[in-house]
């Protein structure tokens, strides 16, 4: 009998997805491969690696497309594909009681992130992008505390602050330099991402991550159509293949498919805990850049990356309590778990 079966057979009352999430967040359930922390980390790593190509892809796109075309085109294309997927798989509209949560995911990832990111990349040097990634895991943990009822231990917060400081120091060395007034945009971007991630992960405990992300993009669709058409009318759509590939990547992967794995990782392994993986994102971006574009890897980067890996490892093993009253109500009989492994 696996640890998973033991947990199922010993549980009273019936085990729902949300209750399973609460019970397993700090428990060693099953073998190494079936442990929620391991599964969450694997999905989180896939999401983080997908996002590590967002910055070069965005730069390839905004080199030829106007930033407004990219900002509105990214969620529009993703939303259209999401609508097709939901239609083809015959999904029903989510229950009304979750619409407030969907509105927050849409506000964060469907509206806030594309707008602030394109605006920020337009008015700030690229090195400032690392500042966003340095603060985002702290922001995600904060929203997880405020909205998802997670209570990370002091050890977790200490590790998270050390990791963020290492990335900030690295951004400073990379030439982020003085903080400008426009850096306020990046704080908005951090807040929007953190809200979308934490709220999306809360919903992913009651329905699959791909449905959470797809529905939130479909809900944002009407808001993007007219601004996109106006942007195209003003600036046009003529661009070389590299710019189109960049736009397609940030729409299909960064805005949509990458989020499937990311939300599932956050909801399975703990929002605050798995959110820390993004501290490693700037280094993965630079690793790809060094292999493809020949950018040199400096000793400072290796030192900062080593500090980040240590901070993520300490944070991963720190305990996180969850207040059950903060978990979304998931009382439909179809959500009860029998011998099925929760997703």
């Amino acid at each position, binding site marked *: 009998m696996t640890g998973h079966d033991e947990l199922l057979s010993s549980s009273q009352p019936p085990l729902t997805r949300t209750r399973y999430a609460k019970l397993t967040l700090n428990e060693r359930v099953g073998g190494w491969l079936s442990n929620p922390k391991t599964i969450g980390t694997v999905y989180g790593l*896939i999401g983080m690696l997908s996002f590590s190509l967002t910055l070069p892809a965005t730069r390839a796109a905004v080199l030829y497309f106007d930033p407004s075309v990219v900002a509105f085109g990214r969620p529009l294309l993703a939303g259209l594909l999401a609508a097709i997927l939901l239609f083809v*798989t015959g999904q029903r509209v989510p229950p009304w009681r979750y619409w407030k949560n969907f509105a927050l995911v849409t506000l964060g990832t469907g509206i806030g992130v594309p707008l602030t990111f394109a605006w920020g990349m337009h008015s700030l040097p690229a090195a400032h992008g690392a500042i966003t990634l340095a603060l985002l895991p702290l922001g995600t943990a904060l929203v997880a505390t405020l909205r998802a009822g997670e209570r990370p231990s002091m050890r977790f917060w200490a590790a998270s602050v050390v990791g963020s400081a290492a990335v900030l120091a690295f951004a400073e060395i990379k030439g982020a330099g003085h903080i400008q007034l426009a850096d306020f945009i990046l704080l908005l971007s951090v807040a929007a991402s953190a809200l979308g991630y934490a709220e999306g992960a809360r919903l992913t405990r009651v329905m699959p991550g791909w449905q959470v992300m797809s529905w939130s993009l479909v809900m944002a669709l009407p808001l993007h159509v007219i601004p996109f058409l106006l942007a195209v009318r003003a600036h046009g759509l003529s661009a070389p293949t590299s710019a189109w590939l960049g736009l397609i990547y940030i729409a299909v992967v960064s805005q949509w498919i990458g989020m*499937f*794995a990311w939300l599932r990782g956050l909801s399975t392994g703990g929002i605050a805990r798995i959110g820390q993986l993004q501290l490693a994102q700037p280094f993965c971006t630079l690793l*790809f850049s060094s*292999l493809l574009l020949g950018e040199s890897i400096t000793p400072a980067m290796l030192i900062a990356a080593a500090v980040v890996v240590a901070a993520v490892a300490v944070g991963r093993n720190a305990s996180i309590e969850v207040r059950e009253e903060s978990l979304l109500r998931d009382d439909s009989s179809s959500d009860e778990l029998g011998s099925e492994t929760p997703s």
Partner: protein
Amino acid sequence: MSHPRHWPIDAISSVVMVLFLVGLAAYAAIHYFLFLR
């Protein structure tokens, strides 16, 4: 057709992303050793 809830799209999309990332990493490594080293 299976119940709408049970389409394993999270898992399928993750496998596709892993294949893409492994392919890109392999391409990047070959590109690095052939042209940039």
